[in-house]
């Protein structure tokens, strides 16, 4: 069976999904079920104190026993903030050490600050974390993050939440060809065809949130994404036909036509 290996863990689904921006927890759960995702990202935030002690939490709808949680460092702009956040996450999730590192550089573009990302990755890997790292589509940085010991490299397809799709397939391909760890596209996917194209390029998986949560019908889009990731993966494994520029090749027999001579 074709499975995704990240650090010492094995997954049958290659679609990883975020849990933000849904209408409510019920819709979050339904979309994640439709996506077939086994890994779900969560953010770490200050607990509301003195407000509604009985109010439901995300964990009630997505029990950690059922899913692999991937705590992220969304909103962190320095290595130090990201490291503190993930140490809190590890404590919160009883020692769970698989994390998504992202260090942002700018609040408008949410473009990664790769200098701080590299710094944080070095410390986190030494501290025993299995680091899946969000980065730009710079092949040199991607390779450096792998060499530091990150267990997966996750370049953007386009800006977080933009739905612009894959803007630089060539860079993604260079990253994939050079990598010995799984390369996952993280951010920028807008619709199912984007996901299929990323998988056809040879990505090991895709992480997305807004493409599903921001669709008119998130649960239906989650199902579409599941199929697109599977279809793209199978097409990649199957090996596409060679492109023949300016030269057609008929699919039907050229002999035996009723007008034949």
């Amino acid at each position: 069976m074709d499975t995704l290996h990240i650090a010492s863990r094995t997954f049958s689904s290659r679609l990883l999904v975020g849990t933000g921006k849904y209408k409510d927890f019920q819709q979050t759960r339904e979309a994640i079920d439709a996506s077939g995702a086994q890994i779900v990202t969560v953010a770490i935030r200050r607990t509301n104190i003195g407000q509604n002690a009985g109010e439901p939490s995300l964990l009630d709808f997505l029990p950690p026993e059922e899913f692999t949680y991937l705590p992220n460092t969304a909103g962190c702009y320095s290595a130090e903030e990201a490291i503190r956040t993930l140490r809190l996450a590890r404590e919160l999730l009883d020692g769970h050490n698989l994390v998504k590192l992202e260090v942002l550089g700018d609040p408008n573009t949410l473009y990664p600050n790769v200098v701080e990302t590299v710094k944080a990755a070095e410390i986190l890997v030494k501290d025993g974390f299995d680091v899946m790292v969000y980065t730009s589509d710079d092949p040199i940085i991607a390779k450096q993050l792998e060499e530091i010991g990150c267990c997966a490299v996750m370049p953007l397809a386009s800006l977080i939440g933009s739905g612009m799709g894959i803007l630089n397939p060539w860079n993604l391909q260079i990253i994939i060809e050079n990598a010995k760890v799984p390369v996952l596209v993280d951010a920028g996917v807008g619709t199912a065809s984007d996901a299929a194209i990323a998988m056809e390029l040879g990505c090991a998986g895709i992480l997305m949130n807004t493409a599903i949560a921001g669709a008119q019908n998130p649960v239906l889009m989650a199902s579409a994404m599941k199929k697109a990731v599977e279809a793209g993966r199978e097409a990649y494994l199957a090996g596409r036909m060679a492109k023949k520029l300016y030269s057609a090749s008929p699919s039907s027999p050229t002999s035996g036509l009723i007008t034949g001579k």
Partner: protein
Amino acid sequence: MIQLTINGKTREFSQTQLTVADLVTQLGLTGKRLAIECNGEIVPRSTFGEVQLHTGDKLEIVGAVGGG
């Protein structure tokens, strides 16, 4: 009296002695899945009952929320 900064806000507690476990109870967070940092250091859940808080301590109390 003990004065603490919790999640960026100053709070006062009338006790003279306060452990992290006492604080969790007092804030109505018992049974919630959370992680606590005191002055930049993680406080392991297993030590909540032993760690004494002091005036001026800065605490971060966090949980998991939806995110991408």
